[in-house]
Each structure stands twice: as C-alpha cells, then as structure tokens.
C-alpha cells in the first residue's frame, strides 16, 4: 500500500488528525497503567496466607465488667468448645492473617546491641496455633507445653528485667529465615527483641502471612509461645470441615453464652469473610479500574467511528473518482484501514512515552513498582484492535460508494 497519499491527506486535516492521535495516546497511556494497577491488586488479593482458610471460624467475646478469672475461664471454654460436634481443633489466637484491627509487631535483631532492627515482624501469640490454623511446619517442631508462658507473667518479667519469665523460643516463616540467616540452617539460631529478649528458633513454617502492615514484608511473621485469654483481646479459632462452619459458629456461640451469660459476642465469622473484608477495597478498586478501561476504550472507539464517518462523508467524491479510475472496493477499504493504523501507531508511540511518565508520577506518589515492559504491548495491541474495529464500519461504507458518484456534482 502506498503511504504517501494517505499522509498527504492527513496533512490537510492536521488539527483533527493530531487530536485523534492525542486521544489514542492518552487512552493508551491510561490503559497501560490501569492494567498494571489491576495486576497489582489481583496479586495482592491472591497472596497466600499459609493457613487452612476454608476450615476456620473465629469467635471473639467481650466480658461485661472485669472478667473474674480469665485464665480459668479460657480453659473451661476451650474444653467445652472441643466437645462440639465437627470441631477438629481449637486455639486461642490474638489475630489472624489479613485482618484489620491491631497487630503486635516488633523489630528483630541479629545482635542485641544493634541500633536499628534487622527486620520488622508480626508476632502470633496464643495456644495451639499451629494445628488450629493448619500452618505447615517444614523444619523443627511445634512448641512443647513447658515452653509456654502466660502473657501476664511475660509482661511482669519484662518490667523487672527478669528474663526467666519470658519466652525463650520461637517459630519463624521460611521467608523470614531466609532474610535473617541466608544460606544457613535457621534451627537453633537466636534473634533478639530489645536487648533483653533472646529467642531461639525451634521451628520453621512454610508460610504465614502477617495480619496487616503488609508493606513491611507480608511473610515476615513469627510465633511466640505465650498463653492468651479473651481478656487480652484474643479470639477463639475453631477448625472444622468447610461445610460445618455455620453450624459450628452457632453451636459455639450458644455454648459460650451458656457458660457465662455475662459476655457479648464481638466477632463471629468464618475466616473467608475476614479475608474478603480485608481485601474488599482492593476488589472495589480493581472493579473501578476495569470500568475505567472499558469506558476509555469505548469513548475512543466511538470517537474514531465519528471522525472516520466524517472523513468518509467528506471524501465521497474523491472515493468515487478513485473507483471510476479503477480502484477496487478492497483498495478503498484498505486505504481507510491503513490510515487508521497509521494514526493509531503515532498515538501508541506517543502513548508509550506518556505511560512511562504516568508510571513515574505514580511511583513517586504511591508505593508502586516500575511498570514492567510487558504492559506496553498490551496497551498497543488494545488500541490497534479497537482502532481497526472502529474504522471497519465507516471503511465498509466508503468501499460501498459507487463510481458513479464521481460524475455527479453535489
């Protein structure tokens, strides 16, 4: 196809052509970045938690007034919960992966005299966590009963500086072990929290995500052998078969209320609900971005249809003359398709530069990585495809102009 006539025609419609190129460039740039952002959100929503998500339910109770003996009550509650039909494991956990609310975090150090901590981790405290949450142990062992200390004891020990009342061991995730002791066997290694707490690694789990503050490293979490009670803000977590979850929640709440009616249910939910809530804003944002992409491509496509229709209408006579001089319908069709392809290409080239610029802007204002090269062809292909689809209608109409038009005056 000879490009020169097309270019010279476009030169006669410089402003209009430039506007179309600009529109395509802007759309291309925004679409590239939006697709990238959607990818980021989906990746976030897809993060592994490391726990048996579909088998867990969480129940949190608050006591009205001071609870009498939180420790004894927790033991009674746990014994009763274990009796409920369908319950496989019961644990007390302060928080769960990917959930809002508090989280306890601390700075882990390789050397107690370090000024800045090596890595910030979230700690999971409570009893029977490993089997209840279904976290997979890949090396070492779970805590033994003798290793647990009560939270109150640990707090008091911390205040007096008596290290005996503090936990001595911990379980870490594989990702954390690789960060702290790359290339070494993490079992038996010691890390420090503050200058007083020395914790020896006795087990490594495949994966356990932290509750929130994910940008500090989603897999940097540890477990400490500390007994918690509901009075410390912890929840009961029950593991059961996925289809029994609703029934177990109902039975457990009834049982707990019967044991002590002076309590209020603060939370009762399946873990799936908790996770869905945590990522709800990401899901909403991904939806909005999809909407923006669709709207942008539609508007651009309609703009191309509109402009192409105009040009076809304007050039009816020229088309007639060309047809009369021997151009086939295919020639006319290809002319308009090539013209659109050229415009789209100019737009895409400009759009790539713009996309890069927008990404730089987003990188400085939001915590986003650099736009990977793979997203550029995505935008380009989308725009080329949309352009060709949009121009097809007007181009076919142009091809249908009969040669006889050339002989008529308008």
């Amino acid at each position, binding site marked *: 196809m000879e490009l020169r006539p097309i270019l010279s025609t476009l030169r006669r419609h410089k402003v209009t052509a430039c*506007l179309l190129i600009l529109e395509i460039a802007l759309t291309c740039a925004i679409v590239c970045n939006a697709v990238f952002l959607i990818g980021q959100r989906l990746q976030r929503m897809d993060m592994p938690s490391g726990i048996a998500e579909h088998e867990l339910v969480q129940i949190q109770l608050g006591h009205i007034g001071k609870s009498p003996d939180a420790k004894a009550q927790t033991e009674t509650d746990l014994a009763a919960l274990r009796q409920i039909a369908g319950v496989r494991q019961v644990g007390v956990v302060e928080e769960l992966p990917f959930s809002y609310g508090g989280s306890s975090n601390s700075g882990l150090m390789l050397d107690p005299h370090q000024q800045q901590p090596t890595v910030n981790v979230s700690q999971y405290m409570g009893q029977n966590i490993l089997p209840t949450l279904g976290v997979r142990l890949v090396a070492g062992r779970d805590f033994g009963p003798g290793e647990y200390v009560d939270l109150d004891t640990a707090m008091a020990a911390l205040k007096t500086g008596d290290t005996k009342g503090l936990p001595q061991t911990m379980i870490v995730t594989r990702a954390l072990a690789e960060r702290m002791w790359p290339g070494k066997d993490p079992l038996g290694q010691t890390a420090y929290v503050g200058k007083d707490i020395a914790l020896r690694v006795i087990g490594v789990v495949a994966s356990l995500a932290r509750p929130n503050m994910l940008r500090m490293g989603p897999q940097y979490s540890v477990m400490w052998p500390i007994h918690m009670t509901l009075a410390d803000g912890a929840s009961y977590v029950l593991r059961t078969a996925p289809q029994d979850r609703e029934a177990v929640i109902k039975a457990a709440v009834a049982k707990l209320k019967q044991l002590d009616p002076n309590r209020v249910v603060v939370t009762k939910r399946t873990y799936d609900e908790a996770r869905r809530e945590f990522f709800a804003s990401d899901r909403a944002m991904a939806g909005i971005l999809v909407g*923006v992409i669709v*709207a942008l491509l539609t508007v651009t496509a309609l703009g191309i249809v*509109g402009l192409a229709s105009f040009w076809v209408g304007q050039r009816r006579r020229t088309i007639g003359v060309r047809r009369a001089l021997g151009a086939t319908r295919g020639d006319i069709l290809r002319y308009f398709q090539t013209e659109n392809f050229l415009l789209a290409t100019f737009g895409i080239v400009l759009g790539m530069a713009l996309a890069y610029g927008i990404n730089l802007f987003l990188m400085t204002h939001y915590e986003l990585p650099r736009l990977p090269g793979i997203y550029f062809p995505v935008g380009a292909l989308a725009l080329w495809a949309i352009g060709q689809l949009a121009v097809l209608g007007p181009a076919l109409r142009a091809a249908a102009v009969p040669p006889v038009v050339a002989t008529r005056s308008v």
Partner: protein
Amino acid sequence: MFGYYFDLALRSLARNKVLTALMVLAIALGIGASMTTLTVLHVLSGDPLPGRSGTLYYPQIDPQDSRGYLPGKSKPMDQVTWIDGMNLLQAKRADRQALMTGGDVAVQPGNSTLDPFYEDARYTTADFFTMFGVPFQYGHAWGAAEDEAHERVAVISSRLNDKLFGGGDSTGKALRLDGTDFRIVGVTGDWSPNPNFYDLNRKSYDENEGVFVPLSTSQDVGMVHDGSVDCWGNGGGGNTPDHNAPCVWLQFWVQLDSPAKAAAYKTFLVHYSEQQKALGRFQRPPNVELRNVMQWLDYNQVVPDDVRLQTWLALGFLLVCLVNTVGLMLAKFLRRASELGVRRALGASKKALFAQLLVESGVVGLVGGMGGLLLAFIGLWLVRRQPASYAALAHLDPAMLFTTFLLALGASLLAGLLPAWRACQVAPALQLKSN
C-alpha cells in the same frame, strides 16, 4: 441574535443525531466521573471543625530511649504516655487542654428488651467539649471538678440516646457501663466531625463515639482501651498499658488562640523535653512538633490513597472525553465549511460566525454537563455502596454542585473554542468556488 444562533445550533445538532448524542455522552461521562471522585475527595479532605480547627493544636514530644535515634530524621511520637499527658495537662499552659483516649464499653440497657452491646467510648478530661465545641441536646458536659473527683458521670451521643431512651431527655438517669452505674449528665447534639481528627488510630471516617466518660473514672473502673499502643525499651505492649509503662496510647489536644501563643507553647514543649531529659526520663534531645488540625490530618495522610488515585483516573478520563469532543466538533464544523463560506460571503463577520459556532458547542456542553450531573448522582450512589469506611459520607453539597456546573460549562466551551476558531478561518471565495 442569540435566539437565532440557538435555533441554528439546534437545527445543526438535530441533523446529526447520533453524532450529537455521542458528543453529549462523552462530555457527560467525563464530567460524571470527575465530579464523583472530586466530591469524594472534597468530602474526605474537608475541615472537620470549620472555624475552630485553626486554633486547635496537637503537641508531639519524643520520650523514647536513645536506641534507633537518628538526629533530624526520627519523628516525635504520634501519641503521649500517661505521665507526659498528665504533666502537660496539669501544666495548663494552653487556653484549653484535654487528654483523652478511645475505648470500648459494654452497655447494659436497663430496658430488658435490648441485649447488652459494645459501644465506642472516649475517656477524656472535661475541656474536650468546650474546646471542640460539642453541642448539647440535653444537659451539659462535666467539669474539671468531676474529673478531679473521679465521678461516675457520662455524656452520651444523641444516637445512643435514641437507642436507649427513645430520644427523650435522659439527663440524671443511670446508665450501666462495664457493670458500673454512671449518671448521664448530657446528651450531645448532632456532632460528627469527619475525619475523626482527634484520634486517627480508630476508623478515620464516619465513626464517632456513643459514650464519653472522665478519663480518671475510666481508669478506676478498668475500662478497656482501644486504639494504638506504641511501646519501646521494656514496654510490655498489651491493650491497656500500665500508667508507668514506656508506651504511648493517649492523645493530647490544646487550644491556642493566637500564633504567638502557639509559638510560646512550642518553646514550652522544648523546655519540658529538656527538663525531662535532665531528670533522666527522656534520653533523646528535644524533638517536638505542634501541628494544627489540618496540618495534623495532612501529616497523617488521612485521605486514602485509592481516593486520590481515582480522582487522577477520572480527570484523565475527562481529558480523553474532551479531546474526543473537540475532534468530533472540529470535524463537524469543518464539514460545514461551504455553508460557513456562504454566510461569510453574504456579509457575516468572523466574529458572528464564531459566536454562532460557540453557541452550538455551548449547547452540547450544557446538555453534557446536565447529563454529567445526573451521572455524578448515580456515581455517588455507587460509591455509597462501596465497602469503604467513608462511603456513607459521599453526598453532593451545594458547593460541589456549583463546581460541577462550572466545570461542565467551562469544559464544553473550551472544547468548542478551538473548533469554532478553526472553522472561522475559512476563505469564503474558496468555499464558493469548489463544488
């Protein structure tokens, strides 16, 4: 003349219905999307206490140990310890001052048809109400004397009053909180500052407490703290820290009526830090900040990142829609070159043609703007159905309504300017000659 142009515009637009609809729709979509996101941004970054926020300050000091201190880089803490809070409160160096923190209390309604439930609470000293200008529907706030005497008094919100007492005057009545009887002294009127500036550790939007009790009393009764606790050294964490623990968990607000007083207060904070360092309580050199409400909100980046991103997206979309409309309008005007040429030849000035074309583009813009307004209402309705904490606040206020209209009109005139100017440049003779 305007009437005639208007008539011409309508005729011209009606001649090409699909195209006109396309241009109107593009403008409407762009404006609708931008207005929706701008309204959300406007609502979220608004002043929570107009007229008062300029004189309310949030003092920050740095009581942490020297571990991890980076001179010039380490920021003072976002809350205060019990000891510092009490010291600053009792120093009474500001016009008004209040020490407070958040919590949850179990409310046991006397009315047996209601089950006990948890309610968000604020444990605070008395100046909270006068300093923040809390209106009262019934009764009044408690005073410094009640704070001193650790009295069991409570102020409740009108929402809770409706729930417990059917909206009647409940002052003087008893309210059972966490198993202890409190006497209601006041019911607040309609008061819900957004964002919830005085304690950003809780949900920032659309969540205000139902129960207010004196800070001193809350500690006696052992009410549970809810919010952020930040400890250092051998601070033990836990939800309700010990009063001597090296943990920050309280908010301290002051009212300073003039910039001179604010400057003096900042100096006082430096002196206080020096004095505490001399006493051995503080280890770091004085590291203080004194921000007013808007500066504090800005420092904490309260407006969610997603909302900002959505605004940028919508503005980008509006730009594409505008470019699209300019292109279509230009093509349309240029196609009528011969008609315009005839008018020019018959004596119409360039200015007259320009006015005529501008009226036509103005009509498109106006209709598009109205469509955009409609779409913004739908958009805001969709936002309110989103799972975000701020969702319920997304409403169009008169200021934003007016802005929408200006934006629509401005955008469409802008979109019409270039095509109209370009189309006026036709040489009449050339147009008459061809065809």
